[in-house]
């Protein structure tokens, strides 16, 4: 199987004055195509830091990082920006839609900004994605007028716009009520199953983790081997 993500010996430390805090200590993680993995851990375990490093939003102190077969840890700022645009999708806890744009424009944004405008093909793809997440009738609604659950569904559609190799989700149901959270999780599972999209979901919610095919638990900056679980045939062992 193809490794979508292959992180080896990822370490990250932060200096605060004379004090050096080591948040990640030689973390190894691999994800294969089509996996739906939950990244678990208590607060301060380093899961958000790992997600940021994998999302090329933060550079590791040490280690190698391969995404879609490409070494990315030493990329320049510009290379990271382009790579994020073409290979990664993001879903954040607070959806972070652009409030002055419609649902369709928000979804098309990752493709439209580098291209200089929303083409007919982009519009078609955005429409399909919004139909997929059940928001066809809200296509031209300003994002600011959507409910919390609807906004998060638009955020999922946006994350999928450029057909990313890996979708990174940070507490995607953290700000939703139970019904909306269920719907968002169902949607992510459906996209994962039908499109073979690979998801790495950072969460501290056991219910979210239970819906994933694999659990990766971080404990004190290391992968807790005791906390890893593989469910289903798409799962793979930790590297």
């Amino acid at each position: 199987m193809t490794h979508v993500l292959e992180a080896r010996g990822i370490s990250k430390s932060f200096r605060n004055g004379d004090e050096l805090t080591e948040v990640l200590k030689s973390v190894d993680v691999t994800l294969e195509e089509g996996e739906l993995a939950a990244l678990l851990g208590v607060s301060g375990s380093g899961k958000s830091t790992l997600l940021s490093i994998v999302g090329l939003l933060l550079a590791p102190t040490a280690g190698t990082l391969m995404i879609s077969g490409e070494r990315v840890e030493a990329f320049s700022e510009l290379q990271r920006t382009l790579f994020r645009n073409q290979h990664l999708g993001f879903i954040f806890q607070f959806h972070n839609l652009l409030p002055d744009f419609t649902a369709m424009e928000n979804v098309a944004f990752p493709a439209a900004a580098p291209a200089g405008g929303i083409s007919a093909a982009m519009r078609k793809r955005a429409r399909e994605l919004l139909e997929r997440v059940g928001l066809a009738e809200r296509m031209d609604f300003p994002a600011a007028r959507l409910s919390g659950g609807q906004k998060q569904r638009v955020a999922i559609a946006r994350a999928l716009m450029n057909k990313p190799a890996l979708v990174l989700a940070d507490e995607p149901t953290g700000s939703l009520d139970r019904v909306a959270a269920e719907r968002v999780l169902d949607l992510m599972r459906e996209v994962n199953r039908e499109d073979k999209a690979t998801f790495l979901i950072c969460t501290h919610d056991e219910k979210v983790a239970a819906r994933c095919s694999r659990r990766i638990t971080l404990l004190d900056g290391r992968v807790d081997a005791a906390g890893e679980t593989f469910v289903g045939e798409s799962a793979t062992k930790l590297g």
Partner: protein
Amino acid sequence: MFAFTVARRYLYSSPSQTALLISGVALGVTAFVFITALIQGLAIRLTADVTANSAHVSLQQPTRVARVLQNPAVHTEAAALVSTFQRRQIRTWRSTVALLRNQDSVSAISPQITGSAFLVKGEAVAPVSVNAVEVESLNAITPVSTQIISGDANLGADGILIGVRLAQDMGLAAGQPVLFRTDRGIDRLLTVRGVFRSGVQSVDERVAYISLQTARPLFRLPEGVTNIEIKLTDPGSARQVAEFLHGATGLRATPWQEKNANLEGALTAQAQTGTLIQLFSLISVLIGIASALILSANRRRGEIGIMRAFGVSRGFIAAVFILQGLLIGLLGAALGCITGYGLCSWLATLTKPDGTMALPIAPSEGGYVTVMVLTTMGAVLASLIPARSAARLDPLEAIQQ
């Protein structure tokens, strides 16, 4: 360009804030236009006032300095000039006038004899500055005929026109005789044909007009004239025309600016003061734009972070803010030019009780192109600070906030 769409959308999203921002720019531009139109208007009026009643270029014989002619073959112990005085007159004035008539830039020509004389009436004696002119070109330089308040402007063979203050001081009125005594010691009885009021005190109490023919025997100048006064179609070109005429005739050519050096200095100082005011009004406009966009960039940190996370380049983010600055600058400058022109045009219609303009303002001289270009360019420059700060935003930090 998608960055333009985003910039426009950002401006639309806060209509009241955008309207206030554009109004602020427009206000600054209006102030700029008003100051420019006022200063230009004042300069135009002062220049017109000065040049309306005087020549734009005066031609005179250059001062001749006598020199000792020496024969190198003969040894001379010492030589001294006994006298260097020579009356300055232009003997070839007719050919000079013919040359001037062929110049497109020349609108009027008046060959004159100017000199000093006394008017004597009984015990009253008053010095006068005499302008002897060709009868047909009496109004070429100064519109004397229009300034006559009693009598008429018909000089004739023995006529004289005097100013109203001089007439009052000497108790003279149109139709009365007066003894005219020149600096050459020649007396002649002239008749006051008309009394004029120029509005300039020194002229009204010291200047008198007689005909050239009358002046010739009185000033012992049977052929020549002392000066040729010229009006130009464009008074602003006086320096260049004077230079040309000096080269073409060998005569000393004096432009009106040289005769009114104080006025020129005052106009320059006034223009410099105006430039400072314009500069400060533009700077305040630009500070306003920069601070508003900095606030906008701070308010939209989260959105910028998301865009950056999704792989939107720093250049795109910077372009969004620069384009906002450009739009605000363009719209504000255009609105400011319109309101500025409107305000100046309205002020130009206000008149004083005597019918003259209340404010010497020139609405067409508001510096509209300059202010449009400066404001738009300045707005783009002002937006570089927020654009740079937005583009350099760390996406992770922005999203976490």
